[in-house]
């Protein structure tokens, strides 16, 4: 008896042909639909641009008085209204911006955006947070704070915090630490950016926090933020941070004093060139260079013999900036 493909192969092959034909037809139909949609969009682009401009003009005209807006606004979708308001919020300042916030409240844009937000999937919630942040105003701040405090997803809370930072409405440092669970989570550059945004208005609270019992990562986060406080009264707190047993806190103190650029930090910064930790020495060398501390030159020159190549490199760069050779 000759070997041949079994009969079941025919059945499977028939099934495969059916799947392939229907699958390919479906994909062909989809791409055809997308081509037609794209073509239609390209033809309507100029109309859409005109509509967007009309919408913007109508909103601008309605800002001074609490009257109804025109027909373009009435027919626009929530997304189109938000896009127009978001565009204007980047252009307006002062009283006009306040009037735009009042307009947003009158037309309940934030409420429309955040309706049933808890039931949306994660990516959609993040998009809603971004839209609310782009609209701005007191209602947006309330909604974002609500999401920051209560949303179950860390991604949404982080996005809400970033949006609050964008509109200079971050809550207190303690509230932020709690909402972002920083006592347990890994501190990332984004957290550091948020705390730096908070620093100019919360220097006193940050100094108090630095004195409290916190994890080294949170202490480093707070110490780093003090460098953006624009307040020289934090120098004493930074000096204490520079004496911390945790290297990341000492590095954060160096980064902070480097940004503040106050020569008062030199007294504790230069000795850090002899720290036990190589990364602390490297950061200190870089800071001495950027702060122009010529008093550090002898120690920078001595670091040319440091066992760490990173320290040698940073010391050499700093010495070059200060006009010498390490």
């Amino acid at each position, binding site marked *: 008896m*000759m*070997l*041949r*493909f079994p009969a079941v*192969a*025919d059945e*499977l*092959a*028939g099934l*495969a*042909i059916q799947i*392939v*034909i229907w*699958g*390919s037809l*479906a*994909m*062909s139909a*989809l*791409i055809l639909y*997308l*081509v*037609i949609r*794209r*073509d239609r969009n*390209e033809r309507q682009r100029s109309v859409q641009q005109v509509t967007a401009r009309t919408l913007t003009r109508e909103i601008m005209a309605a800002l001074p008085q609490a009257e109804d807006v025109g027909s373009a606004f009435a027919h626009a979708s929530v997304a189109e209204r938000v896009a127009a308001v978001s565009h204007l919020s980047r252009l307006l300042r002062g009283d006009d911006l306040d009037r735009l916030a009042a307009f947003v409240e009158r037309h309940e844009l934030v409420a429309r955006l955040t309706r049933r937000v808890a039931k949306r*999937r*994660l*990516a959609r919630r*993040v*998009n809603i947070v*971004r839209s609310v*942040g782009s609209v701005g105003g007191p209602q947006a701040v309330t909604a974002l704070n609500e999401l920051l405090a209560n949303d179950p997803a860390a*991604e949404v809370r*982080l*996005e809400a915090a*970033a*949006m609050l*930072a*964008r509109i200079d409405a971050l809550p207190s440092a303690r509230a932020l630490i709690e909402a972002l669970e920083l006592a347990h*989570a*890994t501190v*990332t*550059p*984004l957290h*550091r*950016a*948020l705390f*730096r*945004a908070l620093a100019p208005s919360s220097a006193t609270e940050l100094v108090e926090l630095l004195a409290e019992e916190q994890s080294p990562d949170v202490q480093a986060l707070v110490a780093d933020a003090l460098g*953006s406080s624009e307040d020289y009264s934090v120098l004493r707190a930074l000096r204490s941070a520079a004496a911390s047993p945790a290297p990341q806190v000492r590095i954060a103190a160096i*980064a902070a004093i480097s*940004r503040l650029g106050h020569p008062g930090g030199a007294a504790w910064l230069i000795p850090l060139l002899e720290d036990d930790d190589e990364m602390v020495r490297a950061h200190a060398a870089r800071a001495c260079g950027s702060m122009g501390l010529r008093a550090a030159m002898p120690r920078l020159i001595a670091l040319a013999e440091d066992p760490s*190549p*990173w320290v*040698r*490199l940073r010391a*050499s760069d700093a010495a070059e900036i200060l006009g010498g050779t390490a």
Partner: protein
Amino acid sequence: MTSTDLFLLVQRVGVGALVAMGTLCFLVVTLRNIMSVVQLVLAAIEFQTRIRPAARSYELWSRYADLAPPVSVIAPCYNEELSIADSVRSLLSLQYPDFEVVLVNDGSSDATLARLIDEFDMRPVQREQLVVLQKTRILGVYVSDEHPNLLLVDKENGRKADAVNAGIGFSTAPLVCVIDADSIIEPDGLLRGTEPFMADDGSLVAVGGTIRIANGSAVDGGHVRQIRLPAGWLPRYQILEYLRAFLTARIANSRLNMLLLISGAFGIFRRSVLVEIGGYRHDTVGEDLEIVTRIHRHMREQKRPYRIGFIPDVVCWTEAPADWKGLRNQRSRWEQGALETLVRHRKMLFNPRYGRIGMVALPLVIIEDVLGPPCELFGYLLVPILYLLGLTSGTVVLAFFAITVLFGTGISLGTLALEELQLRRTPSARDLLKVAFAALIENLGYRQINLVFRIRGMWRFFRKDTVWASAGRVGFSKL
């Protein structure tokens, strides 16, 4: 046993072998298509559920520039005197708060070095190399007073892997971005590429990004000024291949944390991890696949938590081979590189110690790169022969061609639809239709010729041919 019996036995064994081979061919092409469908579905889910990159990162980073992780962009260059100045100017104009460009002149025999020194007013300096990973001698290091973030390393010729290793040794940033000198990075490509590191807990060790083909597009001053579809069909077919590779395969693999390949044209790595594993290998033509596989192996052997990410957004443009010879060289090299990596890391195959990489990702490479090309190509001949010998039905023959040719078209169209729905970087509706048409005809010849090129790569692998065959690019179109 009579001679007739012997003949019958040989005939039955021969026929049995043919049927077995036909069955294997059928199974392999079916498996490859199932893989493609799964990848397409996973990619669609990823696009649907992903959190899109936010402008907030760029805003916060522009306010607090020193928080952006510093990046060393390592660009190896060899005999590129005509284009190198434009490429470097393009790199220096990238939108990123803190980056340095480390150019490595890999022993060019033309005037690349002189051109760079002259164009960027570079002067020699004494610079200590932080770690030595290259095999060849460093001839000099140059800096530019005009561009403090530009460093030029001149070294003896040693191919791309060696040049990148030299660059890693001189780089000072925690992240290194490895590119080809002729890669065109999007102005915000570094921002997009490093965005995942901004909110990372320290486990992210590498990130790849989507690369597109720039043939036909207007390129000026090292930037893509206007996206245009290439006039030739060969680059158009490659546009589809790149879409399938980047928008389905890599996104799906990345979602399952089994990404094995970050393109050599653009990849961001933690410098410390590259140094730990000794940098790129010099003895393979597929160094980009090998290094990611080795990172997986290293991290899993050390039982360290890690991730290798992928961003679907376009970060970089590259020039695809415009003629058959260049394409042949490129595809042969890719195939050879895949086989070299598989053989070098065979210990990981089906080894539970390496988790999903050993149990799933590498076996899939075997189906795709070892069994796939010969089974499909052989199947085109064998399945009709089986039919002519009366060993199988016409339905099976039709099914084989439907699965390879027709379904290939379906997958390509599905990927194109995904691109249009999510990224929309095809210039116009008319161009979208042209690419869709290319998807129909690429399966009638181009696909099969590509299989021949890959089998040539297998031949090179078995011959241990280490000659680097150029992809023969012709340069970008100007505005």
